[in-house]
């Protein structure tokens, strides 16, 4: 065993316990420092986010990493918790399962929102902290590098993290941006100030919107909201004029009846000069009469329309899951194959050294018996010996590499040791 991990996520650890188990950056650095002293020569990386706490450890063939129960006890000690609280909620794994788990985590497949991209940066930070704390090493280093590479492949070769899932982001990026090329020359009109309006405004501002007006039935409330959202307040009585001037409307009032009827909209339409209008009606009940959506140049979206689009995006993400899992499987196999092959290096080295030693002895004997050979002839003979040895070694080494793909090639290594009398 060379790799181990214990950890828990939002699915397994209750929020109250997760809060107590979470590590800040300073606490994580302190924990890694303790680990270095407690388990010298072993490697460790601690990944702590709001949704997960995971501890990855690695060790050489001889001493191996700490056992999962040791890791649980260590985590409990670092956070001043009773280990018995953590044992039932933290999962542990070894070797290839650890690699597959880390690759899935880095690719966002184990996240609360499938494919969310922030986890890549968090994995990178965790690895950097381990490097700074001098607890990372060749094994964890390569495993985390491979995890980041896998995450990049999943992001590039699948669309798992691309589809938007929140109503404000879908409203702006998938619909408003389909109508307008830019937002910095557009008038945005906020009617009411539901929570969704503020969130949608955040996306609109990120897209470049600058000219924003807010209307509210209560003028004082409108002023207060305008100051809080850093927008201009208008008068609710000017709704028709503001509709005529707007390019994009976000409506979130608590009105029980539509505040914009087809007749009222027709008044505004007269002064719009044919400009297109996007209406994001995020209110329930709706603020805009749905018949307005049939007017030419009007793109009206209700909360249900946007929620349906979010659902469609969510289903698309799910459809990408098999492709993402196939990439993780491929990368995990490759990583484990390389890891197993690396474990054969000492035996191969001894085999090469033994053959080289025997070859040198035979060459010396030959050159003593043929003193007439000049330097060029000797070099030719030496090269021929080397080529011969390399060709003889090639089949067993190729077999070792091939066998490594399936797991540690213990059988072949033992056979080589016995056949060629290789001492440890």
């Amino acid at each position, binding site marked *: 065993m060379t790799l181990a991990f214990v950890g828990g996520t939002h699915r397994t650890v209750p929020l109250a316990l997760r809060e107590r188990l979470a590590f800040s950056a300073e606490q994580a650095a302190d924990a890694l420092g303790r680990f270095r002293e407690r388990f010298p020569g072993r490697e460790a990386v601690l990944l702590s986010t709001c949704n997960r706490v995971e501890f990855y450890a690695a060790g050489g063939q001889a001493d191996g990493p700490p056992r999962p129960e040791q890791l649980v006890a260590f985590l409990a000690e670092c956070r001043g918790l009773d280990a018995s609280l953590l044992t039932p909620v933290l999962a542990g794994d070894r070797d290839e399962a650890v690699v597959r788990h880390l690759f899935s985590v880095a690719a966002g497949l184990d996240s609360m929102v499938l494919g969310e991209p922030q986890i890549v940066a968090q994995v990178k930070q965790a690895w950097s902290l381990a490097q700074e704390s001098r607890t990372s090493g060749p094994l964890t280093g390569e495993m985390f590098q491979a995890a980041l590479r896998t995450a990049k492949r999943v992001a590039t070769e699948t669309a798992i993290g691309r589809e*938007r899932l929140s109503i404000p982001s879908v409203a702006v990026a998938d619909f408003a*941006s*389909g109508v307008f090329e830019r937002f910095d020359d557009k008038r945005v009109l906020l009617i009411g100030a539901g929570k969704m309006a503020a969130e949608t405004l955040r996306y609109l501002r990120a897209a470049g919107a600058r000219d924003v007006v807010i209307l509210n039935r209560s003028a004082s409330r409108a002023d207060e909201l305008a100051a809080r959202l850093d927008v201009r307040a208008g008068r609710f009585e000017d709704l028709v004029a503001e509709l005529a001037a707007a390019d994009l409307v976000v409506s979130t009032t608590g009105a029980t009846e539509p505040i914009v009827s087809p007749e009222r909209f027709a008044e505004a339409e007269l002064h719009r000069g*044919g400009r*297109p209008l996007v209406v994001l009606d995020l209110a329930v009940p709706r603020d805009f009469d749905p018949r307005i959506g049939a007017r*030419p*140049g*009007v*793109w009206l979206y209700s909360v249900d329309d946007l929620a349906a689009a979010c659902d469609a995006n969510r289903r698309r993400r799910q459809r990408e899951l098999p492709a993402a899992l196939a990439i993780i499987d491929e990368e995990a196999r490759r990583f484990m194959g390389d890891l197993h092959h690396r474990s054969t290096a000492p035996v191969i080295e001894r085999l090469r050294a033994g053959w080289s030693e025997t070859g040198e002895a035979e060459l010396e004997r030959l050159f003593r018996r043929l003193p007439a050979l000049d330097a060029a002839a000797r070099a030719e003979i030496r090269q021929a010996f080397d080529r011969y040895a390399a060709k003889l070694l090639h089949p067993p080494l190729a077999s070792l590499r091939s066998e490594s793909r399936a797991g540690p090639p213990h059988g072949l290594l033992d056979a080589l040791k016995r056949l060629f009398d290789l001492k440890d």
Partner: protein
Amino acid sequence: MIEFVSGISVVCFAASYAVALVCEASRLLFRSGVRGAVMIAFAGAGLVAHTLFLGWRAAHEQAVPLSSAFDWYLLAAWLLAGGYLWITLANPRTPVGLFMLPVVLGLIGAAQLSSRIPFPQTPATQVWGAIHGSFNLAASVAVASGGLAGLLWLIQAGRLARKRPPLNSFRLPSLERLAQVTDRTLPIAASTAAAGFLSGIVLNAVNRQAGLLETVPWTDPVVLRMGGLVAWLVAAAVAARMGGRRADGPRTAAWLSVASFVLLTGSILWGLAAPTRHGVPPTRPADASSEAAP
């Protein structure tokens, strides 16, 4: 190098564009990290080969571009291929190639079916011929660009009306950007097509005087189709202009642009199939016919 350039054939760049088109189409089927680079490499290689081919003909075949129907079609295809590459480099995730490359390949196909023999020229007809060809070329490229923008507008508007989120592999430009293209291309197409038609009348008169080419009669298919196209384009540009301040103006402009492109395609096909005296050397001494265009 000279041997290499002289060996470039139409098939070389047509095949490159075809591979780029296959790459574009594969966007709809699967994702790939290297497809964009492969697509641009093939389109770029095709454009370079296309440029060298036209340059070689201009320098070695005594055929400056636009002096034969073959060269005219290839130059139109070259302009659109350059436009495709530019748009794709600027917006790698926009699948415009799915729409532009078939037009490029269609123009190359039309070139293959057209005469490669340069029209007989004198200094006077060369100038008027270049003016006539350039205006017609500009009109055709404007109609094709506008038609494609109009088609994309209708597809994008359909998606927005059905309230469906876009596919990541098929993100089209915004309606605002597409409407800007159709707003510009319709008047450009109308004015350049009209100028091309008028310069053609002048060229016909100059040819008749010089006795270089057969006089093209008013009833010739080329005159009829170009006259009809000019009339349509002018009417479409006026209609789009009048509807510009109406809410359904962009939709009208999109439909008019698509219809213009369909008419242009029909006109080209008609030109390829129908007999014409356009650009034909005289078989007998040129005489002024009563039915001849002035």
